[in-house]
């Protein structure tokens, strides 16, 4: 009996080998079905699209290789602005959103004004269309010519994005915090932690994990909405594409910009999937 503990001298039985064969065949079968179906659908779609009467004109206007090549450098340079804007705003939004969510959950009477401010902030900024906010801040504030404030429309467009998305993200965080069972706070308090400590070390870490998918959703949305800065005259990827498109009567640049945005968002989605899976594996190892 003994040596089997480490599994060294164990040999799978004939039945188990047969079972493994069945499982392998089931796997192969489902993989080939899915692969076959995907190829079939893609071919069908390609045939239908390329066979339709308007296709040559569509290809010329939206998928012209020369135009794509010609506009590429301008879009790439413009897109760098979108990426920078997104990176800076994302960090600011996370901080602001979490701060507002925490302010809303605060219990102390001394913090009541903060709580009210947080409620008013979310109600207000979730209600204003983002493009309106960008126009207001991007054109309006530099026009005030106040001393010490930046006059760059890009900076103010960034502030508008942070304010707008901060309100959304705050609500996402609040939902996450509310979803943590009160017994978690009780056990933290029972260990002698203060309420803020309980939030900091017990509730917020768990809440954050739960809200990663909706947060990602908001950030993909933010990545796309960085395109809105073009309305205040910032020469970003969309502005560059529009510039070229209107001059040459060709819409290929828009497709190129779309590809840029897709390439940016997909890795983020895969990264979050991977992160979520890792957390799950670590915390629920073979349990319940």
């Amino acid at each position: 009996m003994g040596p089997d503990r480490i599994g060294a001298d164990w040999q799978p039985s004939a039945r188990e080998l047969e079972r493994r064969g069945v499982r392998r065949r089931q796997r192969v079968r489902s993989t080939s079905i899915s692969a076959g179906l995907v190829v079939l659908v893609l071919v069908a779609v390609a045939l239908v699209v390329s066979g339709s009467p308007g296709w040559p004109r569509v290809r010329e206007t939206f998928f012209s290789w020369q135009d794509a090549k010609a506009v590429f450098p301008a879009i790439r340079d413009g897109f760098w602005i979108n990426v920078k804007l997104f990176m800076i705003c994302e960090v600011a939004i996370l901080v602001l959103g979490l701060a507002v969510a925490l302010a809303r959950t605060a219990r102390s009477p001394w913090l009541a004004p903060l709580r009210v401010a947080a409620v008013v902030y979310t109600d207000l900024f979730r209600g204003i269309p983002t493009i309106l906010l960008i126009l207001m801040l991007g054109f309006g504030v530099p026009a005030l010519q106040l001393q010490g404030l930046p006059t760059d429309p890009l900076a103010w467009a960034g502030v508008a994005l942070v304010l707008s998305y901060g309100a959304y993200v705050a609500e996402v965080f609040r939902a996450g915090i509310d979803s943590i069972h009160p017994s978690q706070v009780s056990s933290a308090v029972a260990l002698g932690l203060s309420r803020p400590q309980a939030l900091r070390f017990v509730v917020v870490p768990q809440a954050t994990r739960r809200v990663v998918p909706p947060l990602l959703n908001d950030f993909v949305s933010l990545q796309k909405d960085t395109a809105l800065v073009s309305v205040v005259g910032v020469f970003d990827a969309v502005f560059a594409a529009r510039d070229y498109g209107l001059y040459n009567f060709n819409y290929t640049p828009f497709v190129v910009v779309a590809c840029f945005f897709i390439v940016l968002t997909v890795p983020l989605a895969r990264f979050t999937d991977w992160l979520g899976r890792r957390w799950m594996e670590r915390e629920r190892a073979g349990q319940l």
Partner: protein
Amino acid sequence: MTALLKVSGVRKTYGERVVLADIDLEVEPHDVICLIGSSGSGKSTLLRCLDLLEDVDDGVIEFEGREVSDPRIDKRAVQRRIGMVFQAYNLFPHLTVLDNVTLAPRRAHGVPRAEAEREAQALLARFGLADHASKHPDRLSGGQQQRVALVRALATRPALLLLDEITAALDPELVGDVLTVVRELAREGTTMVLATHEMTFAREVATRVCFLDDGRILESGPPDQLFTNPREERTRQFLRRVLP
């Protein structure tokens, strides 16, 4: 009589760790099998394998005369015939007690709502839970929650009931309530396999007791024999530690 459940040579590993090895077990209708042994000896894993919540790595499990460890089998059909109660109750907190109990009959067995609710009410009443049908599980005490979990498992009239240390999370005062229910089920002839730390209870209700040690059934027999005159030294050690 043919065995309801027949386990032979079952093995289960998590990575390098062997958690079950060479498990043989036969359960006849109306048997009450008690699995005893220290934490980590594989009791829960065995029950999870029996309910097909885990795939075994070797060996054969037969239930109602069919091999259910075959990957081609419809697991749900088997699970519909087996009831399981967990240590941590695992009630659905977003449903009322009544909805917890009627969920499986209505959705997995296609019982009409009115009939499912009538039967659920009757079962709840039998176990002293009639007043709690419209409450949500978090409003109940641990003992009440565990009794609801038992009712939930019974509502589908399973051929076999698996109980995984169902009193381990309860305080001693409430343990009695739950054990009374199990005792009654045993008297009615419900076929059960249960992992437990309640030795006195095991001795009273079991038709057979299995002592698990390090993933193996080291010894099994009728409770009187196993508790008074165990064959293995390891069993003796364990019983000395846990018996009052």
